[in-house]
């Protein structure tokens, strides 16, 4: 099953003079288990798009289907949709509120009406999945480090057992190691449970390294939709819309222009290393 967006548009402030078209005729199919990177400059419509996927925003026109059902149907169960499509906002640690980590993660499943036992099992499982050490489970979330707090917040969403996990810049403000740890954990999570991941990011390097497919948003439209090496071929166009390519892309193009016979479309360090050493060794 999958998420299908069929001619979805969204207009903010529809009947006023200040109306802004944030999404313009989006058509997308998001199959199960894919790891998608969503990029675009500030104000390109990324956040508006992801908020449609779990029904926080309603499309002004067009339809969205989740597992074959139209999510705007009158008798569609929105509450279930929100547990199936988990959304982790930017700086999610600002939403932690309970007195200890474990209760905070229990909050979601408890509200689904699950038994105490099931709730606690899910919370335990979610915290284990995000790699939080067990001695932190009963600490106040406010005593943890930035990266740890963020894991707790992600665990809170995971405990809902989502089929789709959307993360809005999960690594903003973390140190390089913290960034890598969170992303590795997401990769592992996907391998273990096969869930669909949508990663909203400003880091082209991270997107190039981890995702299967990139969606580039610009002015409320999908500008590119392809695998990373194809998308980053358009690095000049990406620059014109406020984005960039990973530094590796620029290096490879420069080498190619200098006359070195490398494949200029490598996007990650390991690919580039392979390519260059092929020529040099």
């Amino acid at each position, binding site marked *: 099953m999958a998420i299908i967006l069929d001619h979805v548009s969204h207009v903010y402030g529809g009947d006023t003079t200040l109306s802004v078209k944030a999404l313009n005729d989006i058509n997308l199919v998001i199959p199960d288990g894919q790891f998608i990177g969503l990029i675009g*400059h*500030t104000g390109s419509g990324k956040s508006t798009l992801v908020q449609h996927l779990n029904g926080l925003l309603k499309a002004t026109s067009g339809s969205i289907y989740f597992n074959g059902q139209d999510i705007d149907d009158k008798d569609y169960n929105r509450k279930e949709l929100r547990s199936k499509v988990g959304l982790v906002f930017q700086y999610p640690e600002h939403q932690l509120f309970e007195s200890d980590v474990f209760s905070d993660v229990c909050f979601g499943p408890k509200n689904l009406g699950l038994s105490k036992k099931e709730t606690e099992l899910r919370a335990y499982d979610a915290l284990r999945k995000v790699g939080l050490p067990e001695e932190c489970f009963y600490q106040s979330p406010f005593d943890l480090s930035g990266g740890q707090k963020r894991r707790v917040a992600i665990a809170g969403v995971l405990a809902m057992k989502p089929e789709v996990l959307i993360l809005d810049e999960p690594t903003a403000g973390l140190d*390089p190691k913290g960034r890598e740890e969170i992303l590795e954990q997401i990769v592992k999570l996907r391998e273990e449970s096969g869930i669909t991941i949508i990663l909203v990011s400003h880091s082209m390097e991270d997107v190039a390294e981890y995702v299967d497919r990139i969606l580039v948003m610009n002015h409320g439209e999908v500008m590119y939709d392809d695998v990373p090496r194809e998308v980053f071929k358009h690095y000049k166009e990406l620059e014109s819309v406020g984005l960039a390519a990973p530094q590796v892309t620029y290096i490879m193009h420069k080498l190619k222009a200098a006359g*070195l016979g490398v494949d200029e479309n490598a996007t990650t*360090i390991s690919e580039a*290393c392979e390519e260059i050493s092929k020529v*040099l060794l």
Partner: protein
Amino acid sequence: MGIIKTDKLVFEYIRRDEDGNVEGINRAVDEVTLDIKQGDFIAVLGHNGSGKSTLAKHMNAILCPTEGTIWVDGRDTREEDEVWNIRQTAGMVFQNPDNQIIGQVVEEDVGFGPENMGVPTKEIWERVEESLKAVGMYEFRKYSPNKLSGGQKQRVSIAGVLAMHPKCIVLDEPTAMLDPNGRKDVIRAIRALNDVENVTVILITHYMEEIIHADKVFVMDEGKIAMQGTPKEIFSQVEALKALRLDVPQVTLLAYELQKKGIALPDSILSIEEFTKEVMHYYEQKGRKA
């Protein structure tokens, strides 16, 4: 003595329970001694919780040292009479632009600082104009800040500090919330301030690419200065940086990985131009041998 000098600076966060008894002490800055020259571009690196922000907050007297001393332009920050002078000497820009902008219109926001200092009206307008021009935001002077992108707002915040004519500007992760273009524009504005206006810059960041032009880099760990040197010296120590939860720019890492495969490139290449030159050089040498 430089613009900012510290002597065995210590800062402790003290946690207390409801009755005011001390529950725990966290030493965030631990005997830091440094001396920053007027006009330098200084970068401060360090993992989350290493003490960077706590140190930065001492530079304009938001925090006062628990032990040791910090002088800003020769003034001890513990002298209460000097606090306003210190804050005019060293301005600060934070991570989230939305928390720093108060004006309804861009030029009003930038004028807030000098107005509070009692600068005559005519001069306020001159300062607003020159500051906005310095960060490339003059054409937006009549805009409402909430119509601007993150990078633009951040540049307005910098202009707001600049309008107070500081000798030194401290930026605490100013690009963490920005998209690639916003990041580039902010860094370009900061470098211009340093090059053209000779303002001392202290930039705290997690993005290694942003600091390759710095005059000096301090790396913090557990409240102490763990490493210091030029970007070249710092980024030549790939493994040591990784152990401190940090990284090197992608181009430096790529050169390092190639070295490990036995390709003799020089240590700590920082720019794409340098990398291309060195790789081509190696390639030609090899061609000559064969």
